[in-house]
């Protein structure tokens, strides 16, 4: 039984963390909410005034917003599809008895540790550049027209770069989950004459389902706010072709100085993230039991 003294002590030990996170959550968010109802431009200080939902009206009726919304979902969906399917395949491959498995793992996990600005610039210049990039050289070598990735397929190029960064993460987590699969069960299935495919769909996939859920939910949090990769490659362009919600808020606030409009966008991003978060919290909550 914890004594009263111990309880008080426990509160003191938790308090700094709680207060900091509470401040971090409430103060800026309240300010964003407040700004979102104001006409507030950094270029005309002192002219702030309350304008109700006008910012939201403008933001939601701006075609850029819907493009950014669609791009956000495309980035999340595209990267998830590549990394989850690729991750399952790679995890199955790495789970085989292969020689030098340690080194293979080390090589495969490496992209996850590369800072986003580096991976985006390396891919943009040394691989995807239509004149000097390696892909252009490969295309020319087989007599094809080099692709100008960021001009023709800006969003797809960003999805590729981000997927390269997250594929190792998915692989590593799925591999860890795969290794806890009961080998006796697999052998029993083999005895019963189960083929590779039926073993995969009936044993492996159900076993991986929890890890896959975790991968999807965690990646989603990070993918909703992809930023650096867009900033250093396309600046959101051409037009709004590769602008996501995070980048739109950034450009509205720090490039166009429209604090009010950007804040409305920020609040919308928060709402979107919350919808995702509710699912995630439920999932992680279950693992605590």
């Amino acid at each position, binding site marked *: 039984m914890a004594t009263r003294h111990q309880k008080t002590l426990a509160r003191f030990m938790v308090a700094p*963390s709680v207060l900091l996170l509470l401040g971090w959550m409430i103060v800026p968010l309240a300010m964003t909410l407040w700004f979102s109802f104001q006409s507030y431009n950094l270029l005309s200080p002192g002219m702030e005034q309350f304008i109700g939902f006008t910012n939201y009206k403008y933001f939601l009726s701006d075609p850029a917003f819907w493009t950014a919304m669609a791009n956000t979902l495309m980035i999340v969906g595209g990267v998830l599809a590549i990394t989850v399917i690729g991750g399952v395949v790679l995890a199955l491959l790495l789970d085989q008895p292969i020689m030098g498995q340690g080194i293979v793992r080390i090589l495969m996990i*490496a992209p996850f540790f590369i800072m986003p600005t580096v991976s985006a*610039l390396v891919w943009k210049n040394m691989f995807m550049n239509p004149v000097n990039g390696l892909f252009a050289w490969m295309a020319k070598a087989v007599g094809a027209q080099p692709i100008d990735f960021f001009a023709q397929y800006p969003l797809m190029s960003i999805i590729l770069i981000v997927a390269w960064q997250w594929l190792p993460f998915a692989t*590593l987590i799925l591999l860890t989950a795969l290794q806890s699969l009961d080998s006796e069960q697999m052998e029993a299935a083999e005895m019963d004459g189960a083929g590779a495919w039926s073993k995969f769909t009936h044993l492996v996939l159900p076993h991986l389902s929890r890890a896959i859920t975790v991968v999807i939910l965690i990646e989603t949090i990070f993918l909703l706010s992809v930023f650096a990769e867009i900033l250093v490659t396309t600046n959101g362009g051409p037009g709004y072709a590769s602008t996501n919600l995070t980048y739109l808020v950034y450009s509205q606030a720090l490039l166009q100085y429209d604090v009010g409009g950007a804040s409305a966008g920020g609040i919308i991003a928060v709402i979107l993230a919350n919808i995702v978060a509710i699912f995630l*919290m439920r999932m992680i909550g279950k693992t605590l039991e």
Partner: protein
Amino acid sequence: MTRRVSERRRWSFTILAWLVALVIFFPILWTILTSFKSEADAIASPPKFLFFDWTTENYAEVQARSPYFRHFTNSVIISIGSTLLGLLIAIPAAWSMAFQPGKRTKDLLMWMLSTKMMPAAGVLIPMYLLFRSSGLLDTRFGITFVLMLINLPIIIWMLYTYFREIPSEILEAARMDGASLKNEIVHVLTPMAVPGIASTMLLNVILAWNEAFWTLNLTTSKAAPLTTFIASYSSPEGLFYAKLSAASTMAIAPILILGWFSQKQLVRGLTFGAVK
């Protein structure tokens, strides 16, 4: 017969796995190779893989173009500083939640984690304005503090999942023997908690090192870590592939090495203990 088949299977999987791993790793390898080329060799067609005049001049030029070591030092100070500060605040919290859980401990943990899910775009503007008005823009202290805040939930969670695995009977035994709270922490808990604290630290240094939203928005030059420094290469000036590669190699090398040590903790840390 079965033996031969499995031997062949082993070989084909080995070759396939190595091929895939090399393809995935190739951009990093290519960056490292290019960093030792002259600018002309860097864009040579057909590309030069190993047979070129190896040079280290790019590394010198990168330093001449802008003070690389200042940005490196900033990265070190910011990532280690924010992690240590976070540990200082998180260890007592995780300790008390792991060993003296109350009725609301679980809710509290979930709430802490939920703060991690707030999108940066939602708080960028007030943070920028607060930083601007208080003179914290482009200061090491400011960015260190923000990175500490965004990683605090992960630090608490990681520590919590590690601490929970320490058998509480040991603590009770120590208490029975009349150990004071201080002794309990110093002599019993700390030695058992060190591995968990170390891996928490490792993972969070990596996360902070690579963080590229707040560092890009809240620092410009004086306090700019390597993420911001590398971003300055996004507007090309003449031939710059070799220099970009040299700068990139220096920016990723330290953390790549740390990262390889942290593979195991990575899974459990980033899934908040849901996958081990």
